């Protein structure tokens, strides 16, 4: 990957990387650190990463950095309501986003916090970033069948959590 390609990849994926870290860690400060570290690592390894695979590579690196960070602290990040509000207000200028959608976002973000870090990362990669099962299996370093069952199970758990929170489909 040449210098210009690196710059393009960063511009293209920086927000996705930051968002993934934010929803994984439920904190903007941690997300900022992780996103910067992932982008720096892409620069270091730019000779080995192709432009077309930069996105999945960055999300894999982000996933690993998030897992390392949680493991070091030995605690699962708690959903901080204040941080959550800040994160949900990130696209407040979007007039199409209703209060109802923001409330639904708050509930799904809280429900995500109840999943294990690996399951949360997998379901975010699938539903938010639109990655294929193969890409997720590579990113999380798990067999394809395992990833498939993880995502199916996580969707079901999120559904139950939303139902328990009073969200009626």
């Amino acid at each position: 990957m040449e210098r210009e390609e690196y710059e393009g990849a960063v511009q293209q994926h920086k927000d996705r990387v930051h968002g993934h870290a934010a929803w994984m860690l439920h904190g903007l400060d941690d997300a900022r650190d992780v996103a910067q570290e992932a982008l720096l690592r892409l620069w270091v390894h730019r000779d080995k990463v192709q432009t077309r695979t930069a996105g999945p590579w960055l999300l894999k690196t982000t996933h690993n950095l998030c897992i390392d960070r949680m493991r070091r602290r030995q605690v699962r990040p708690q959903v901080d309501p204040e941080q959550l509000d800040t994160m949900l207000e990130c696209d407040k200028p979007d007039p199409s986003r209703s209060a109802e959608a923001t409330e639904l976002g708050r509930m799904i973000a809280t429900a995500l916090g109840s999943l294990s870090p690996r399951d949360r990362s997998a379901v975010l990669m699938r539903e938010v970033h639109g990655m294929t099962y193969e890409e997720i299996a590579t990113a999380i370093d798990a067999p394809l069948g395992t990833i498939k069952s993880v995502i199916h199970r996580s969707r079901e758990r999120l559904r139950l959590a939303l139902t328990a929170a009073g969200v009626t489909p």
Partner: protein
Amino acid sequence: MSNDTPLVRKECAEAREVMQEHMDGPVPAVRRATLDEHLARCAECREVRRGLDTVRTALRALPEIPLPGDALDEVWARTVDAVPDDSRVSAWRPRLAALAAVAASLLLVVLAVQWSSHLPPQPTVRITKAVEPDAERIEQARKEAKQVLEITAVALARSEQVAFERVLGREVSPAIQRIGIHWPERPAPQHRRSKT
């Protein structure tokens, strides 16, 4: 009723598996038809399906959280801005190397001319008697020759560095500079041990 319940649960489990597969992409027409038939008669599975759709909608509606501009600036400062632009460097480096090589060659020529001008004039007349060597002049010539050799050595070293840079395509680090160039040594002749 009790006999029907396990059968219904199995149907529901299969239907929910197909629902999940359908969320990931198209499913075979036969499986899709079986699912539709099941959903037509199972209110609980219809509820599950709507719930899964809500989960997907909610996840996809999570706002993108942009990386702050100052955080991105720090990334640029530690990556692309921390190294010179390769394209510009590659454009002027060969020309600079060529110029340096030419300059080193010219310097050698000038030094050679200057040195030759300091030599004592060659005798043009027939020597009629032996000239006694002047110790003072010999010492002076020795010093001048030593100075010229030193300057020449510096110029040669610079030429060698320029040649290195042209081959490597980058500046020569101090570590590389310490590596000398030596002719490969001839293998020492193997002496057969004399039999005693």
